[in-house]
């Protein structure tokens, strides 16, 4: 099954709607709590990343009987140095974003930790597409 969500730049207040909706569906499907948690944590982080850094974007979620694939695609500045971005504590977040309790540089590392497969495609000045997969078994 398929879901699409919109991401609005700078709207931290509404962050988590995609992950809440996905969480409800996974509970309906009877997915193991540990896998629901991994999925929701990863999706929430990716959503926050897009809200904080990009100009807007979409989240596409596909669920079948063995996995969930989440594609978070944004138009935005892109990630100039992916290796640095994957390091814990590395952050380019603005002071405003940090003041809200985000931007600690744990986003991408946390996504990696919670997913079974992570693919990041980024073009500077164009945008970033993060594809995350969690297997249920």
């Amino acid at each position, binding site marked *: *099954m398929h879901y699409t969500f919109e991401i609005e730049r700078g709207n931290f207040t509404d962050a*988590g709607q995609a*992950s*809440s909706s996905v*969480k*409800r*569906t996974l*509970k*309906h*499907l*009877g997915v193991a*709590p*540990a896998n*629901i*948690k991994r999925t*929701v*944590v990863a999706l*929430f982080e990716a959503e926050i990343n897009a809200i904080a850094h990009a100009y807007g974007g979409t989240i596409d979620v596909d*669920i*079948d*009987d063995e996995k969930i694939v989440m594609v978070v695609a944004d138009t935005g500045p892109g990630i100039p140095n992916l290796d640095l971005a994957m390091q814990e504590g590395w952050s380019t977040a603005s002071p405003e974003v940090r003041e809200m309790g985000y931007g600690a540089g744990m986003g991408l590392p946390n996504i990696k930790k919670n997913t079974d497969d992570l693919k990041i495609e980024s073009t500077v000045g164009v945008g970033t597409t993060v594809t995350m997969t969690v297997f*249920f078994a």
Partner: protein
Amino acid sequence: MAAQETFFGHSLKVDKTRCLGCTTCMRSCPTGAIRIRGGKAVMNDNKCVDCGNCMKVCPHKAIYIQQDDFALIHNYEYRVCLVPTTFIGQFEEKFKTREIYACLKKLGFTHIYEVEHEVEYIVELYNKYIAKHPEIRTFISPYCPAVIRLIQVRFPSLVDNIIKVRAPFELAAHIMTNRLMDEGAKREDIGVFYVTPCAAKIAAVKYPVSNKETRINGVINMDFLFNKVQLMLRGSNNNAEAINHSLTSRDILWPLPGGEASLFNGSHYAVDGLQNVLNFLERLEDEAVDAQGLVEMRICDQGCVGGVLATNNRFVARKRLEDRAHLLDKPDRPLNRYTRYNNPDFCKWIDEQMEIDEITPHSIYKLDDNFAEAIKMAERMKKIEKALPGVNCSACGAPSCAALAEDIVRGDADISSCMFINRHTQASEDAIRDIWGDRIKTRTITNDNNE
């Protein structure tokens, strides 16, 4: 509907003679446990968590809490009234605690024992449990039984965060029976009766999470006992009989928000009120909050003084308890603990009695055991939800359009239950009759019939 195994029992009941099927309770239920069938509210035992919200909001007093027959106390030679300080908070300060207890004795109890005598040891048990589980970051207090059930049905991923220690009333019942047996009483001659401020605590006694033996022989609703005592206090000839009690000010404040947290030395949070508890658990489940330490949670606003069986206004009761605690706040007050707490063998035994072996998750969401089938159902549910009006009118007998969609895919309802769909078919008329009985007639309004 497929036959289902029942996991929980409840003391909350619907009085069908008073219920009008007005949907108020159904819309306020945090677990979607209520539907309207045959014009009356019907509860799903596996979804209900005994929070008592339905009873609080019912405009017709159609929801009540079943209680044990008071005459049961006379089956025992030693009749212990296990009373929480919340009860004392119901009375005006001009009545001394010992006067209130004297009334309880006149009603037939031989011993009065305050539940909060044992709370200090409960916190010690929390500390022992926390020390044994370094792998857990957030510990949820097991004190409010409605919170435990809410987690079991709505937040199953958090069951391992609950501290597996039984409630203070259970410890108090054990200690009191042991005290009386130390004095020569026979076990079978002792009857312990707990005065409850809410439905959840009755359910916790009657249908416990733990398989261990309970020492509580009966439960008495707080409002029932309040009315009896209030009448006696207002009577002219009330010969107060002194009864020693040795609670500290912190013990007295235990039922209020922050009561557990104040006895706990580490990092702690105190959350009270249904919506606050739901929000916090939701955020905790998503790891969107990082709560390290003890999270005290009470499903009632203002904690136990907000219980559905507490007669007086929760803020007034809170103030009264705070005032009473202030009176007791003397630095040299000795802690009158049960002497056998000094005996390591006894402590080992009581620690075992107080353990909860397991808290099992019982998710109310799962659509089917077969994953492929569950996906099909979820797809269908999504489609049906889109087709429904989304106004959540509840006229179908479900609390929301989403709930109706779920009921339909589970086979518990039909799309013709929706008043906005197929309005003019025989099926919709039948559905309206099934849900609302004969009280509401279906009508077709035409130009000739402008009423």
